[in-house]
């Protein structure tokens, strides 16, 4: 059984707009049009899309905060909205922009409160807490009131708070928002380890594509309330962004190379380093390197994979041109 199963999920909101002086007109806004996906235990899934695409609305339906207008959803075998409290004991949720800690109390007291609220046996609680404190280096500020913590420290506390009851699924809504680079790296490393060692399933929404690059093996891209693409990150890259960049370092500067099937995107050092963009379906890197070597002596080469941002941008372009490939897993 899938840990998360969503079929034809739909959510609309009814807004009342003022028309004239007294009349009000109801009109419907579709936040999630038609979303289907299934997530198995142990997966790491990035749920991405632009603002207003329906990410948070989907997360709210998965965690039981919102009832779907239509469709089917099960999380850990439960219907989320109907059994929200029960579900809360099985999943962990981290909202990057909200806090589940007690603002005025030392961090450690929030953890103690959560132990009682979630009825976690003392020994299990102590084990999990010790592990989080060690890995997230929270020792120095465990006794500091939450309101005095830096954002990076608080987020470590938030993630710990979501894990103390030992959930099989951790849902993170923009967990790295506003964090500095070091804090992001630390958090990602921790989450990756959590998935690898404990098999905790991760579902995260983010605008930070490095999060996805380092954490997610699978990507679900959503736009205008629909799933645009769903598949392994590597596969998406291959399917959607077929262009690769070959960076060649030449023995001496030459004018921009003109080669069939490749174009020069960028030239450095007067022409001794050139960035050649090619379609890997039409031309292999090896053939291109041979072609370059015929024109000028090659010192070094490297092939750049497309950035995840390019993959997503390309997805949106393809949608515009209605040439979106169906990506299967």
């Amino acid at each position, binding site marked *: 059984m899938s840990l998360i199963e969503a079929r034809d999920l739909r*959510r609309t*909101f*009814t807004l009342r707009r003022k028309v004239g002086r007294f009349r009000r007109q109801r009109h419907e806004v579709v936040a999630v049009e038609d979303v289907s996906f299934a997530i198995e235990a142990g997966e790491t899934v990035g749920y991405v899309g632009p603002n207003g695409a329906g990410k948070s609305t989907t997360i*709210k339906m998965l*965690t*039981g*905060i*919102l*009832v779907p207008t239509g469709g089917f959803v099960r999380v850990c075998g439960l219907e989320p*909205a109907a059994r*929200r*409290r*029960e579900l*809360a*004991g099985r999943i962990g*949720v981290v*909202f990057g922009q*909200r*806090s*589940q800690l*007690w603002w*005025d*109390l030392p961090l450690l*007291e929030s953890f*103690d*409160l959560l132990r*009682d*609220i*979630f*009825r976690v046996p003392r020994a299990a609680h102590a084990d999990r807490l010790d592990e989080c404190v060690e890995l997230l280096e929270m020792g120095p500020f465990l006794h500091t*009131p939450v309101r005095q913590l830096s954002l990076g420290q608080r987020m470590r506390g938030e993630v710990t708070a979501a894990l103390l009851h030992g959930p099989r699924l951790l849902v993170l809504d923009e967990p790295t928002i506003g964090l500095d680079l070091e804090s992001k790296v630390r958090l990602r490393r921790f989450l990756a380890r959590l998935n690898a060692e404990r098999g905790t399933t991760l579902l995260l929404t983010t605008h930070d594509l490095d999060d996805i690059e380092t954490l997610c093996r699978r990507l679900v891209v959503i736009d205008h309330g629909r799933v645009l693409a769903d598949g392994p990150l590597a596969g998406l890259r291959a399917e959607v962004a077929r262009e690769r960049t070959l960076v060649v370092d030449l023995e001496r500067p030459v004018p921009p190379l003109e080669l069939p099937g490749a174009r020069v995107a960028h030239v450095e050092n007067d022409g001794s380093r050139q960035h050649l963009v090619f379609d890997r379906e039409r031309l292999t890197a090896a053939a291109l390197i041979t072609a370059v070597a015929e024109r000028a002596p090659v010192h070094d080469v490297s092939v750049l994979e497309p950035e995840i941002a390019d993959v997503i941008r390309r997805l949106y372009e393809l949608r515009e041109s209605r040439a979106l490939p169906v990506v299967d897993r």
Partner: protein
Amino acid sequence: MRADPWGLINRAHCYPRLVLAGFRRYSAYRAAMLAGLSTNVVFGLMRVGLLLAVIGERPRVAGYDAAAAVTYVWLGQGMIATVSMWSGFHVAERVRSGDIAIDLGRPWDFQLAELAGDLGRFGYHLVTRMVPPVAFGVLFFPFRWPQRLSTWGWFAVSLLLAVMVSFGIRYLLNLSAFWLVESRGLISIYGVASGLLAGLVIPLHFFPEGIRTILWWTPFPALMQDSLDVFVERGSPLPAVGHQLLWAVLLLLAGRLVQRSAERKLVVQGG
């Protein structure tokens, strides 16, 4: 399938800790406590002066002699924060910010959790905001202590019920934020009205008979006047405590019903 459908038996033990947490949360702000305390004492001095001037040479006014009037004022000043007349609206703030989704998503009874936190706050304010103004009154004015030992017991129960009634009203005002874009207006009106109608500004016994009868049908006297009457032994404690108990139960039940529809609104309409 579940032997404990309300989750009350199984989850009962997070509430004592929440009481403790409520106590600790408030004790984090010592400067605010001292500022509030000194305000209570200063206003107490003004009120005592005013009330003693009203009584003047007469032996008693509306049943109050000088000692009973002094007791009424200082006990009342101590009850402002202890009963939490004008604060405790953080839930409305959480509704506005959307953080309420976290509160309602937890495997607990939210109303009970909030009540537990408020009882912790009550404990803290009992020590820091109630005892000092009363001690001040005892030291510098003629004070009327209860004549019967049983009065202390009744007063303890009455004070606890006053907190429950106050909590019940505040909980409903807090939940109003689910429907009103801005619940602060309603909360301000309550602040002004409660001071007058609960018997803080002047004793309700100074009001004409007709108004007192009408007020009896509202929860306002249960916030303060009932407890003050119990302490100065104004007739039997039973009607006052009964009045408080009735309102505490009604308000807490209303809170549950309103919360259920607030949750439905949040979950179905999306807040």
